């Protein structure tokens, strides 16, 4: 296998770390040295030649190859089996509707939320239960980190360069979770979004930081969902009224009440679409009176359509803690779901 990337020699592991940090090639954390052997192992697992074109970034016209994604995936700690997910996430991010350049350059400071569905979650040992939005497992930690390192190194999405975020958020280190499909009667997210259930799939969304809610004081579906909707209304008031994809993370304790009452993800989305909306005049209550102008009576829903709500079953077995994950800037970037591709008619690349 012929790799095209420039090679550097470093005397020891400390020298590797200093080379990568001082060159601006990291997120500030130590990296795994991307040797030719480790990068080739990723490419072989995905059955891709190094110069396989994964896509051309639509705004700046940068060609993204499998080799470069693999180098960054290794740096993030990915094993070869994690690499197809990184490939799929990046393929999804390069779709026009995701607006990768805008989403990753914006002062708004969003991260790329990656949601995994299908059998690959189990193959990779992901966990959608305890600490689902935190450091829940190795696979989601390194996949999310790989997505960010690729942005840093392939798109110059470095703070103060292309990344103009005012604040950013901790999800910019890694923001990946797996849906808890085994402990849910709902359709998995990928099936809800039109992918076959048996397939593995990746959903990417330009996302703000999670906003946690808690309601352990009811079993009524509408009351539970009202808490989620209220947090979305808060986001509409305090952040942005642009409608678009929101995600909600529903833990076992809350979804058991919803599922027992027969509520599907579609029912949930329909209810929240009706409830998560504000009048423009409410902005005057939170210090934004200057932009209400003569449109105080205008109504702004969090989503243009109910199917823009991504309902994800995840979280530990106990606790009425859910989360809403708001969009970067509503309709400017759309969530994209793609199946994890399998090369069924090609041979592995020759060494």
């Amino acid at each position, binding site marked *: 296998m012929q*790799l095209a*990337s*420039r*090679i*550097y*020699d*470093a*005397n*020891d*592991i400390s*020298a*590797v770390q200093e*080379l*990568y940090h001082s060159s601006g*090639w990291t997120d500030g954390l130590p990296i795994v*040295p*991307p*040797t*030719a052997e480790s*990068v080739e192992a990723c490419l072989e697992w995905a059955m891709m030649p190094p110069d396989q074109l994964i896509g051309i970034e639509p*705004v*700046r*016209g*940068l*060609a993204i190859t499998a080799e*470069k994604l693999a*180098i*960054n995936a290794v*740096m993030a700690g990915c094993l070869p089996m994690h690499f197809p997910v990184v490939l799929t996430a990046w393929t999804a991010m390069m779709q026009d509707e995701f*607006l990768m*350049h*805008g*989403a990753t*350059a*914006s*002062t708004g400071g969003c991260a790329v939320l990656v949601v995994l569905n299908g059998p690959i979650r189990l193959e990779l040992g992901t966990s959608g239960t305890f600490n689902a939005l935190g450091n829940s497992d190795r696979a989601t930690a390194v996949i999310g980190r790989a997505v960010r*390192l690729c942005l840093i*190194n*392939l*798109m110059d999405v470095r703070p103060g360069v292309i990344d*103009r975020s005012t604040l950013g958020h901790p999800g910019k280190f890694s923001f990946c979770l797996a849906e808890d499909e085994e402990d849910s009667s709902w359709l998995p997210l990928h099936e809800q979004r039109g992918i076959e259930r048996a397939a593995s799939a990746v959903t990417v969304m330009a996302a703000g930081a999670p906003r946690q809610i808690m309601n352990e004081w009811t079993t009524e579906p509408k009351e539970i969902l009202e808490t989620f909707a209220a947090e979305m209304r808060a986001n509409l008031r305090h952040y942005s009224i642009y409608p678009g994809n929101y995600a909600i993370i529903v833990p076992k304790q809350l979804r058991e009440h919803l599922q027992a009452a027969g509520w599907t993800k579609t029912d949930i989305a329909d209810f929240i679409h009706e409830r998560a909306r504000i009048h423009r005049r409410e902005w005057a209550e939170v210090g934004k009176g200057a932009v209400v102008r003569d449109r105080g009576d205008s109504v702004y829903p969090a989503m243009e359509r109910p199917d823009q709500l991504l309902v994800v079953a995840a979280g530990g077995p106990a606790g009425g803690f859910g989360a809403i994950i708001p969009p970067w*800037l509503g309709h*400017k*970037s759309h969530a994209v779901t793609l199946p994890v591709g399998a090369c069924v008619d090609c041979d592995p690349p020759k060494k």
Partner: protein
Amino acid sequence: MIFRVLDPTAEKAPPAGKLAPRLDTLEGKTVGFISNGKEGTKGFFLHLDRMLREEYGVAQVVSRTKSNYSAPADARIVAEIKGWDAVVSGLGD
């Protein structure tokens, strides 16, 4: 132990983004403004318009605003650029 490690960057400059040849003078020229449409652009471009006409003898200023401030300029705006001698693309943050 020597580590032989690989460059994680694109290693190639983006194909776009080269500057157009510089103009010798602005006098009598047509200058286009492409605003991202944010609030901060309004005062800036208003002032720049006046400065270019009054101090640099620019013949005409054409102002255009993108429909999405986070995305590239709309095709209809890009198509107009050929008719301009210079472009000022401005952000309002």
